[in-house]
């Protein structure tokens, strides 16, 4: 009996010790580099699946001598925790989406970037030079990579062409609607409300105070009985559109082109209220061991040809203006299909994902709903 008690005490002491170690998260206050030095021969990166395909990573390795070590993450959160794992410094770069990038910036996990050292940056559509999800107070934290808008997808044989997101909230469309299963979807409801209920004064769908947030949640709760499926993977939505009875849905260009290729009569519209979208950014760890290789990567991956390669490979839109021509070289018509040559006003109209924070970022102060509240509310919406 005594020995057993002793074990428990030892184990407990170990446990308490393990839990008591505070999480390290201090950023180094390094000055911005003014020139790209010699490569360090290696680059460890956390990326979305498919973002480090051999077809464009191989030439990079040959050109620069920086060996790419890829770690694929399954979710934005995994990216955040990978960048923090082992006190940071294990990974040099991360392809963070807008719902993770601010968390990384405020957590001190990523470093400021000197955009002057990334030559193709000046060819970006101006909306992607300093977007709010990777630029804070004029400081750049990373280089924008690719984006995708959330479109209103519909079956042209069974539906009239919709012009407004209202189609997704109309009880007449019960059982036909597919919606992404993602808390950030609350912003779509807020965007719709910002036009239809001006009294709520929603200016930014990611900065919602209690009243605006409640209104968006109430709208989504009314939408729930109409929803056929909250899709997790793009392939789920494709499946339901093909033969699951869905004819209307919030979707991405990827689903549009895949369904078209499968001869399903679909089209997508930019509803008059505007659209939300996601934007990925290659960010540099604040404890990166191979910063020179990282700058080389930024230069490489932002160049028109690689931008076009990745865009056509993955079904997304490049941020470099010059990538349009290259896209048409790879797949004719793909530039237009993915809106890679749209006027800048179009890109500016897209409300890109960013992490909702308690600080509204305006005169209202810290009364906005942080992301954890969004996640819990999304659970309530789905019921």
């Amino acid at each position: 009996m005594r020995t057993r008690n002793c074990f428990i005490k030892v184990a407990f002491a170990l446990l308490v010790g393990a839990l008591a170690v505070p999480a390290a998260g201090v950023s180094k206050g390094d000055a911005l580099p003014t020139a790209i030095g010699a490569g360090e021969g290696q680059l460890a990166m956390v990326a979305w699946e498919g973002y480090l395909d051999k077809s464009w990573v191989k030439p990079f390795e040959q050109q620069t001598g920086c060996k790419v070590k890829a770690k694929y993450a399954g979710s934005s959160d995994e990216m955040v925790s990978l960048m923090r794992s082992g006190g940071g410094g294990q990974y040099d770069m991360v392809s963070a989406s807008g719902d993770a990038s601010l968390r990384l910036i405020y957590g001190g996990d990523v470093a400021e970037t000197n955009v002057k050292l990334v030559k193709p940056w000046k060819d970006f559509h101006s909306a992607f030079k300093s977007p709010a999800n990777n630029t804070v107070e004029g400081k750049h934290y990373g280089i924008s990579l690719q984006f995708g808008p959330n479109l209103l997808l519909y079956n042209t044989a069974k539906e009239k062409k919709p012009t407004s997101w209202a189609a997704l909230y109309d009880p007449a469309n019960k059982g036909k609607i597919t919606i992404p299963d993602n808390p950030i979807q609350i912003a779509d409801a807020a965007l719709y409300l910002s036009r239809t209920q001006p009294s709520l004064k929603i200016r930014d769908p990611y900065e919602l105070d209690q009243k605006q947030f409640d209104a968006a949640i109430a709208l989504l709760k009314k939408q729930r009985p109409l929803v056929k499926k909250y899709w997790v993977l793009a392939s789920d939505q494709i499946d339901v559109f093909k033969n699951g009875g869905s004819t209307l849905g919030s979707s991405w260009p990827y689903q549009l082109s895949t369904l078209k290729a499968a001869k399903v009569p679909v089209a997508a519209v930019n509803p008059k209220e505007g659209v939300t979208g996601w934007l990925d950014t290659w960010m540099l760890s604040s404890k990166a061991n191979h910063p020179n290789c990282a700058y080389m990567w930024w230069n490489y991956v932002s160049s028109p040809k690689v931008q076009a390669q990745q865009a056509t490979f993955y079904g997304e839109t490049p941020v470099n203006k010059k990538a349009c021509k290259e896209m048409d070289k790879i797949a004719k018509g793909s530039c237009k299909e993915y809106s890679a040559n749209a006027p800048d006003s179009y890109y500016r109209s897209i409300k890109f994902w960013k992490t909702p924070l308690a600080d509204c970022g305006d005169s209202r102060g810290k009364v906005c709903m942080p992301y954890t509240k969004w996640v819990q509310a999304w659970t309530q919406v789905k019921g």
Partner: protein
Amino acid sequence: MAVDATALEPEGPRRNGALRSLSTLAWRRPWLKGLGQLVPSVLAFLLVYIAALAALLVSGFWRIDEFTSEIVREWGIDNFRTLWDDPTYRTIALRTVGLASAVTATCIVLAFPFALYLVRVASPRLRVILLVATVLPLWVSYLVRVYSWRLLLNPEGAINWALGGLHLPQQNILYTNWAMWVVYTYIWFPFMVLPVYAALERIPGSYLEASADLGARGRTTLRRVVLPLAMPGIAAGSIFTFSLTLGDYIAPGLVGGPSSQLIGNVVFANVGVANNVPFAAAFATVPLAIMAVYLLLMKRVGASENL
């Protein structure tokens, strides 16, 4: 134990000093020997199971920083209060328990006659074939099995094709809770069949003969002899089906509908999407409590012998 130590001297080459004195020590002090043998497994058990559970419970009382979403190690019961106050989580917990119970009940209803047939009626050859057929799906990936049901339940899938051929009304249950019920029943079915089969196989044929000699008809024998003796097996199987359903979070996303969230989905959303580990830990204690109650209930019907 008055045995002469030299009499137990092993033959062959003598081992070197330290190891030998250690083994002598262990031999002289049997409790030390026992301790040495137990330490690794006990330590592993403590670290892997107990510590993990304790960490789970402890982190349930923490919260996360709303700005950086890093864990703040401050004590508080806010997570549990949210769970208690918000009707959504109650609905989800009840849905999970309800579904787990329905799946368990269906598995029992299907598995008992099947296992009885295997033990009492089927020829040895057929028995082996059927048992292998029951267990075979377990070799196939879970995802493949769920996806195959998506194909079957599809409005234009095999089931509706067959129903149409028989001039029966079409089903349209894909992306509803009914689909989850069907899929879970299918997936966990082997976990019910095997323990029930094992329990039924242990009933000697002479019991049934004795029951018949005493004037009981088939149904009475089934109710008063077979069923009570099979009860531990059924209970053991139900622990599997119940706990497996209770912990799953994949099927709701694949075949479930708009209101199909289970406890596992909420935990996953909070850990995987929001990094709100404390809240997820708090909610994870709910199935833990449910399972503890369930195990206590099952212990009373003697399930532990059949696990």
